[in-house]
Structure formats: structure tokens, C-alpha cells
């Protein structure tokens, strides 16, 4: 049987601070916010994109950064393995052509979801640049993808489960039995 150990890696306050810093970095890197669009990846990235947009408008004089969401289930390379998320929608409120799009996700792992999101995004227009912001980078990339803005780097085991929300970031280490470990 699997035994589980769940550890808090970031508290709710830490998450807030990390996202505030990331928000500043996004503005700094792009020398302002005039051509910026934030796109949260369904589902975990959507609240983070909204949070970043809120903090940017709080220190950039109420400037509203457009926020969208993108669902990548139709673009995945492992389509048969995952169910489509019901009610997860793609909603990009502005034309992204010529804009700088910041893709936002909660946890960066293999990079495959980001790869799918890039394909999905390019069907909506031709951004001037695409950047990637994540709350947690847990390593184990399978594709040549790196984030531009990271809330926290957390070394993990491949079989760990990372759960990120406003309440904090938790890592559940599962001590698997021999069969399961061989399968994973």
C-alpha cells in the first residue's frame, strides 16, 4: 500500500509574496504593460493570471491588463490519456497579434502542457513574443521549455504530487509499493 506524506512548501502568505514579485518582474521585463496580455492555462493557471493582473493594476495606476484563459485539451500529445475538462474554456478577449502574451500556469512539470498551449495560442493570432510565468517549477522537463518568471523552484520526485492554490503549495510524496513504482 502507498503511504502518503504531505508537506507545506509555501504558505498562503508566501504564495501572495511570490506572485507580487512575479508581477513586478513581468512589468520590469516588458518595460511597462501597454502591449501585455495575460493568458491563464486551464484550470490551475487561471486564478494566478487574474491575481497577477490585479497586482499589476494596483501598482501601475489602475491599468487594466487583459486576462484570458486557454484550454489545451484538444492540442495535447497524450489525448487518449486524459479526459477533457468539462467547463474549461478558451476565452481570449483581445486580438493577441503583435502583443506580448504571458502564459500563466500553476505548476511547470514536463513542459508538455506548455507545448500544447503554444500551439493553441498561435491559432488565435501571432503574438510579438510569448513568455511563461509559473508559480512552481518542479523540474523533470521532457521538452526544451523554460519559464521566464518563477514563483518558487521546488525539487521533487517524479512521482510526487504538487498542489498549488491560494492556500499554499503542498507536495505529497507517495512511497509507492514496488509494482507501482515500476509502472510509473
Amino acid at each position, binding site marked *: 500500500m502507498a503511504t502518503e506524506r504531505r508537506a507545506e512548501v509555501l504558505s498562503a502568505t508566501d504564495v501572495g509574496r511570490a506572485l507580487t514579485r512575479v508581477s513586478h518582474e513581468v512589468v520590469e521585463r516588458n518595460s511597462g504593460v501597454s502591449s501585455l496580455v495575460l493568458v491563464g492555462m486551464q484550470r490551475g493557471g487561471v486564478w494566478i493570471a487574474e491575481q497577477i493582473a490585479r497586482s499589476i493594476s494596483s501598482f501601475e495606476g489602475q491599468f487594466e491588463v487583459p486576462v484570458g484563459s486557454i484550454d489545451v485539451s484538444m*492540442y495535447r500529445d497524450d489525448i*487518449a490519456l*486524459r479526459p*477533457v475538462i468539462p467547463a474549461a*474554456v478558451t476565452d481570449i478577449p483581445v486580438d493577441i497579434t503583435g502583443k506580448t502574451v504571458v502564459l500563466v500556469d500553476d505548476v511547470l512539470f514536463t513542459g508538455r502542457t506548455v507545448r500544447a498551449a503554444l500551439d493553441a495560442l498561435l*491559432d*488565435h493570432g501571432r503574438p510579438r513574443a510569448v513568455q511563461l510565468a509559473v508559480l512552481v517549477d518542479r523540474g523533470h522537463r521532457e521538452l526544451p521549455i523554460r519559464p521566464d518568471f518563477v514563483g518558487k523552484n521546488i525539487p521533487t520526485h517524479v512521482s510526487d504530487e504538487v498542489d498549488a492554490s491560494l492556500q499554499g503549495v503542498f507536495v505529497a510524496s507517495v512511497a509507492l509499493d514496488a509494482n507501482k513504482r515500476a509502472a510509473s
Partner: protein
Amino acid sequence: MKHLLSIDELTVEQLTALLDLTDHMVEISSRPVPKVPALRGRTVASVFFEDSTRTRLSFETAAKRLSADTMTFNVGTSSVNKGESLRDTIETLSAMGVDAFVVRHKSSGVPHMVTEWTDASVINAGDGWHQHPTQALLDCHTVTRSFGTGNDLTGRTVAIVGDVKHSRVARSNVRAFTMLGADVVLVAPRTLLPPEFIDWPIRAVDSLDEVISDIDVLYLLRMQRERMDAALVPSLGEYSARFGLTRQRADRLKSDALVLHPGPMNRGVEIVVDPADLPGSRILDQVRTGVSARMSVLYTVLSGGSVPPAGGAE
């Protein structure tokens, strides 16, 4: 779900999952580039042994929006004219590598037979008087999204009017609308009611005027002149006078009642008013939704992307 042969085979959960996935596909269809790579590398063959415009083109558009390759089999120009049997035709196409067959045939049960001759998925695009499941799916989507009550039609009354006996659309829709909680009432002359309707959980009346002001959805069926081998109605004019949607009847509809028709319309027979003059007409929405509903079906049978049922009964 490997095949879609009949609404009867679906559970309520599978039906509502297909409707929810259709929302996804509606969003994709509304994009500037309405195409996703989901079914890249899969091949969908349309095998239509009966005339069709909207269903065949709708399936092909759906397949293309999901990046599947499509093959169209035209009976008129095929080796069927040299005497090749249906089974040999299917086996030949299967050998070329087909992942899904979309089958229409004038005989009930043909799509079911096709599943025994191929490992590919089979989607019923209409078989005889039996079933037309994707039509029911697009109709349910059109109706539920117009009312905006999720997938629930409890408390709504749907009147299906016309030639129920010869209608696969009616058979699929009675089942689908009932599964979503609607009350279904059939409106037809006795001669156009099928004998089996007594077993259906619905009622039947033989006058449209009796129900017209109480219903939420008016579903007009096409008078199938090509299937009329007996004198089941005295004349089309008389049918129209009793069951057609005339101006007077349209004025008696509830203000938020919807009018649907599966097409092709016989103007002047089952629909006398111009549908463009009916605020409740959803006839073009049905065609639009048809593509998305069929994307939902193709994706579900070909991706294995829906959650497998417990026990893996496939």
C-alpha cells in the same frame, strides 16, 4: 464509447457529457481558425447509401475541424454499381486504414451490422426508420442552450409533429428529450403514428391546435414523400391544414417557444409561414450546432478521451 449507433444505448451521463463537450466544440468553431489538431492522423470515412446534404457535409466539416482525414464514398460512382456487396465495401475501406465509419443506409440496423465487419468505430448517420442519434444530440443542444437551463428540460413540453411513423429523427429525439426530463407529446394523424409508440413514455394527440399554445418546443418533422407508399394522408394540402405551422398557429405559440425542423423543409406543407419571420425559429442554429455536435461525437469515439465507464464495458 466506441460506437454511436442509437440514443437508446446511451446513459444519461453519456448524453450530457456529449452535450457538454459540444459547448467546447462550439467555442472552437467560433475561432478565427476553427481547427484543432485533436484527431490528427485519424481517418473518417463517410459511407452514405442514401441522399444527404447537411448530415454528410456536417460530419465532414466536423472531422476536418478536428484535423482528421476524410474519405467520401459515393455510392453512385462506386463499385457497388458493379455488384460489390456492402460487406466487401466496408472491408475494402477498412483495409485502407479507416478509424471511423459514418454510415447512412435506407435499411434499419445497417450501422450495427457494419460494426461486425470492421474494428473501426461506427457512427450512425441515419438508418431507415430506426435512429439518427447525432440529429437528436444537436437538437437537444440547441434546445437546452436556448433555454439556458444546463442539460435539464424538466417541466418543458416538446411537441413532435408530423410523420412520426417513418421518422428516425422522431425515434431518436423522443428518447433523448425524455432522458433530459422533458415531456414529449406526439402530434400526428393516427395513420402516421408508429405501432410501437404505445410503449414509449409519452402521449399522442391528433390535433396540433389542441396543444399549440401549451408547448415550449415545436418540433416539425419533414413529410417524407419518398417514403409514402400508401395513402396515409388524404392529401398534402389537407395535412398542411391540420398539422402545418400556419400564421394563425404561429401566433398562438408561447412567446418563448422554440421552433425546430431537421431539414430539408417542405415549405407550404409542414411549415407554411416563413421561418425567418418566427422569432423562436432555431432552424439555422440547428445546422450550426450540427457541426459542433458531430465534432463532439467524433472526438468521443476516436480519442477514447471520455472517462471510461466503471468495469470497462466496451
